[in-house]
């Protein structure tokens, strides 16, 4: 027999039945159910095990504050741990499993922790696992982690898409209870752009869970009618299943919409969730209030829940949690639960009211001045022990107990800018403080206004104030009952444990221990006991914990204060934060003009910045990367090679002060560069460290083209704009990035000119286009192009640029027309080999720690002019004659292996930091020389040329005898590139 605990009524659709499983057993429910309501309807109270003691637990709430009923939903890639059963919307075919138990939920071997609770008090791991120190990381922590903890994460990829979206409105209303609905109605009816967001799948808030009337009709019906009216307004956007997770700066709110969480699989083209960024000048927090329990011994048994939740399950979901129910309360709202349950035919056997005097409920056993002091029933509540006003104790058989310790306004979002809530003695709870996020008003129970009438009124008034309106809709008639509460935080009795924070297994004893050890501030209390941490962030437990601390220390609650809240309001899936930025789309990628050609050839690509560059281009039969790279290097040096260098940053610099500007930003001089020539430029940071390098050509009197390294293309441009706008605002100089505008190829090797002559329309003989020449040319019969005679490889080399869309064609044209020279296309590896052979600095040397002096380029820093970094490059620490100098390194034994990152040591010196002489910055195998070569920074390296040292790598165990040589391994006189 299924749904044994279902009663008539409720807001579920009984015409449809959903089948689902929990821990493998089949159950049924209806549309409108949550997983928790459906399980309770089937008589299932036990839904989880606690974090530390593995105590059997059931849900205590009917909402997002739930600390206990955390379950794993679904399976495979969609498996989702730590989901609150109380807000998981039921769908047909849902599979759910309990977590943190072994081998089963009913028999959990780790429940031994409960017997050993004396060892697991607050702060136990700070005291118990102190020695030996090394055991913590390797032994204790892994064991504790395995025993404690919550759900498990799937190892499979999430198959669903997550989106991010942007919304703008004039008024954001957070929470669609009576206050929120009234606020939205007030703004919506006058045509304002409103977004109304609510975490529930059914708007109405507590009205759906109550029997109160609004405007003469049941509250839930009034809410439904308002939702219908709002949904017809084009200026109102209703976002149900949407949790506003935080108030960020300047009117930006984050919200997570669970678009498809209530469906087995997202509909085609729909995401699973959307992370909204909502921009609004005005917002109203109408997020309601959360009931809090009272701590008493064994108050955590399945079947004991918040009184308002018990009522919600009966009224909204037509579920009686037990056959014999009792209520324990310190306020009038608890009495409402008893009345509602009775009205629905549930057997309410006793109301235990901790207050003396006051009116008596009729038709129910109403015990005044009484307290629940203990309970029984390990896997589910069986009985409670009550101490009556006269001191007599009585055991009452019940299978459900509703507890009400009062209601805490949901101030969370109001605290997101560090506003401290203030204590309101009238309702014995914290309410939002005076200074919240600018533009955020609070209405309804979130503001501490707990009656239906007050919620409706404050919702309307908040909307009027936010939008500066003078009149709004009439208020429907509703109850305006006063809050009558006599605070009771915990029941003093016996030595057993009374839970405050059920998620973290924090008990009254733990608070006492914290006080005993002088962790009396609320912030220390939180950290010492873990009170208020984890997925529920103490929504039900925090206030009780600090109230008990106040009691223990003899301070008032306002004196004790409260911790405040940070975003998110409820847990957010990592997928929602990542959105579409995952896998290949983690960041944008850029393709070079030669990409399609290279892909046809089966090239291997490497990510450089956001670019995909050709790393090498294997030929048939080449099985190992070095075969391809060696071939590309040798072919280039023998005849001609082509490399796509489009990725290097290109900046057009124009204006009458362009030359003077370059003199300021480069360490060396550019204003003297003749038109039609290039020069290598060294750019420093203001602290004297080398920032970037590249060649810059003077294309006209007031026109230069700068190149930067691929990696720094963006930051150099930003820096130049800084110099231009902030430092020298009157200079006549304009900048534009043309990196994407030009496809640029390096053509290098003895036959480079002969190959280019096949495509270039002009005379490019050595006389007409000498070394370091630059100019505008045309190719292939008239296409505008640029030619630079510069070399990174040490060969006779050019860089030729055409408008990007012709890049692919130019490459194919050069290969076809120059076929007689057997040209090779080389990738970044071969490029790297040739530049190390030539002793040019690159990434390993331009490491953000090195000066021009370190690189052997100290003379390039002109002191005849002001330039960025010139002054501070002269600092004592940067001009040490014994400082690092760039050197070449080769193994004494040609078969000796070098590794970048190895450190220089004198022969016989111990491999300790004190003997460290520097390190190898780049290493390649030189096919030309037939052995490994490297560049490195060596202390006083310029005076150690010819010496023998060791290159030691403690990670790989290499210890290679090396000779320190000039960094120019290949053609040191530069005869080839001038050829």
């Amino acid at each position: 027999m299924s749904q044994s605990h279902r009663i008539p009524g409720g807001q579920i659709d009984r015409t449809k039945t959903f089948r689902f499983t929990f821990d493998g057993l089949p159950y049924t429910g209806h549309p409108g159910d949550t997983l928790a309501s459906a399980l309770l309807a089937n008589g299932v109270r036990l839904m989880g095990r606690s974090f530390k003691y593995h105590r059997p637990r059931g849900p205590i709430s009917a909402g997002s504050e739930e600390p206990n009923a955390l379950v794993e939903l679904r399976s495979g890639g969609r498996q989702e741990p730590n989901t609150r059963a109380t807000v998981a919307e039921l769908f047909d075919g849902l599979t759910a499993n309990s977590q943190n138990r072994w081998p089963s939920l009913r028999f959990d071997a780790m429940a031994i922790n409960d017997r050993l609770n004396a060892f697991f008090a607050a702060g136990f791991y700070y005291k118990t696992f102190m020695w030996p120190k090394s055991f913590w990381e390797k032994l204790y922590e892994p064991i504790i982690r395995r025993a404690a903890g919550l759900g498990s994460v799937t190892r499979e990829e999430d198959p669903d898409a997550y989106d991010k979206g942007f919304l703008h409105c004039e008024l954001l209303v957070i929470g669609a209870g009576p206050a929120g609905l009234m606020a939205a109605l007030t703004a919506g009816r006058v045509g304002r752009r409103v977004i109304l967001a609510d975490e529930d799948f059914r708007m109405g808030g507590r009205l759906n869970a109550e029997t109160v009337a609004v405007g003469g009709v049941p509250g839930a019906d009034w809410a439904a009618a308002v939702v219908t009216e709002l949904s017809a307004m084009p200026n109102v956007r209703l976002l149900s299943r949407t949790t506003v997770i935080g108030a960020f700066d300047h009117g930006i709110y984050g919200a997570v919409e669970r678009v498809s969480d209530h469906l087995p699989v997202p509909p085609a083209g729909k995401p699973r969730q959307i992370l909204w960024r909502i921009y609004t000048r005005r917002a109203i927090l109408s997020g309601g209030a959360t009931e809090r329990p009272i701590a008493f011994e064994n108050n955590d048994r399945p079947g004991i829940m918040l009184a308002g939740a018990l009522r919600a399950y009966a009224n909204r979901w037509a579920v009686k949690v037990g056959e014999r129910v009792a209520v324990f309360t310190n306020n009038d709202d608890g009495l409402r639960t008893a009345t509602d349950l009775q009205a629905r035919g549930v057997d309410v056997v006793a109301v235990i009211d901790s207050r003396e005097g006051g009116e008596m409920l009729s038709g129910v056993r109403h015990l005044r001045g009484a307290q629940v002091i203990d309970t029984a029933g390990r896997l589910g509540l069986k009985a409670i022990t009550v101490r009556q006003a006269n001191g007599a104790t009585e055991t009452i058989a019940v299978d459900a107990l509703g507890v009400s310790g009062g209601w805490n306004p949901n101030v969370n979002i109001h605290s997101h800018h560090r506003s401290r809530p203030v204590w309101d003695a009238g309702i014995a709870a914290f309410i939002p403080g005076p200074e919240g996020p600018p533009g955020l008003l609070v209405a309804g129970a979130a503001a501490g206004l707990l009656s239906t009438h007050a919620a409706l009124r404050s919702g309307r008034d908040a909307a009027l104030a936010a939008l500066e309106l003078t009149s709004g809709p009439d208020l429907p008639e509703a109850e305006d009952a006063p809050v009558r509460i006599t605070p009771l935080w915990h029941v003093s009795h016996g030595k057993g444990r009374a839970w405050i924070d059920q998620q973290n297994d924090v008990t009254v004893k733990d608070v006492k221990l914290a006080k005993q050890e002088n962790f009396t501030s609320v912030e220390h209390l939180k950290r010492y006991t873990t009170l208020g941490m984890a997925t529920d962030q103490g929504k039900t437990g925090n206030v009780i914990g600090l109230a008990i601390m106040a009691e223990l220390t003899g301070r008032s609650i306002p004196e004790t204060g409260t911790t405040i809240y940070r975003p998110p309001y409820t847990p957010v899936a990592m997928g929602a934060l990542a959105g579409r930025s995952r896998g290949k789309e983690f960041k944008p990628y850029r393709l070079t003009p030669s990409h399609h050609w290279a892909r046809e050839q089966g090239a291997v690509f490497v990510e450089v910045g956001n670019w995909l560059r050709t790393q090498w281009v294997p030929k048939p039969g080449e099985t190992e990367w070095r075969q391809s790279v060696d071939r590309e290097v040798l072919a280039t040096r023998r005849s001609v090679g082509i490399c796509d260098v489009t990725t290097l940053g290109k900046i057009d610099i124009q204006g009458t002060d362009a030359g003077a500007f370059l003199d300021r930003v480069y360490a060396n001089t550019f204003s003297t560069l003749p038109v039609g020539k290039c020069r290598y430029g060294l750019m420093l940071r203001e602290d004297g460290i080398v920032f970037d390098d590249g060649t810059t050509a003077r294309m006209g009197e007031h026109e230069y083209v700068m190149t930067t390294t691929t990696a720094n293309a963006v930051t150099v441009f930003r820096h130049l704009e800084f110099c231009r706008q902030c430092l020298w605002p009157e200079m006549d100089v304009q900048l534009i990035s043309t990196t994407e505008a030009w496809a640029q190829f390096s053509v290098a090797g003895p036959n480079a000119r002969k190959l280019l002559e096949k495509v270039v329309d002009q005379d490019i003989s050595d006389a007409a286009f000498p070394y370091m020449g630059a100019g505008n040319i045309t190719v292939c019969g008239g296409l505008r192009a640029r030619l630079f005679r510069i070399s990174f490889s040490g060969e006779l080399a050019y860089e030729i640029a055409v408008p990007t869309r012709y890049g692919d064609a130019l490459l194919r044209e050069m290969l076809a027309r120059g076929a007689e020279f057997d040209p090779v296309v080389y990738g970044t590896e071969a490029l790297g080999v040739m530049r190390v052979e030539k002793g040019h600095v690159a990434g390993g040397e331009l490491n953000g720690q090195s000066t021009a002096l370190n690189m052997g380029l100290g003379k390039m820093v002109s002191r005849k002019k002001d330039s960025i970094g010139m002054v501070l490059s002269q600092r004592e620490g940067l001009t040490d004659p014994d400082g690092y100098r760039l050197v070449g390194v080769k193994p004494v034994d040609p078969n000796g292996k070098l590794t970048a990152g190895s450190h220089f040591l004198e022969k016989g010196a111990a491999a300790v930091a004190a003997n460290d002489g520097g390190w190898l910055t780049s290493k390649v195998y030189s096919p030309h020389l037939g052995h490994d070569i490297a560049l490195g920074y060596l202390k006083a390296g310029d005076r150690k040329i010819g010496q023998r040292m060791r290159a030691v790598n403690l990670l790989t165990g290499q210890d290679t005898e090396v000779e320190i040589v000039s960094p120019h391994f290949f053609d040191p006189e530069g005869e080839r590139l001038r050829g």
Partner: protein
Amino acid sequence: MIIHHPILGPRDAQEFVYLGDASLIDRPDGMTAGIEEFHEYLYQRTNPAGEHRELWYHEQGDRSWLVVTRNTVTHEITKVELARDVARSRGRSK
């Protein structure tokens, strides 16, 4: 955060790159100032809990450098200027 760009209006802070204290505009002249003065310029910063003038670059926009006056405690932005205008008003030219 939202930065009210003097030319382009309110823009999301994600479009910008942050640099730091606007005093970076006051670069000494390298031909007359020494290491000490440059050291002060480059490394010495106040770190106020409160109003702070700072440089932001509209990299995903019009490439303007801006001087934003922001309260570091509340993140309230009270003034946004073009850095070029600020630089000129502080006597910088060529």
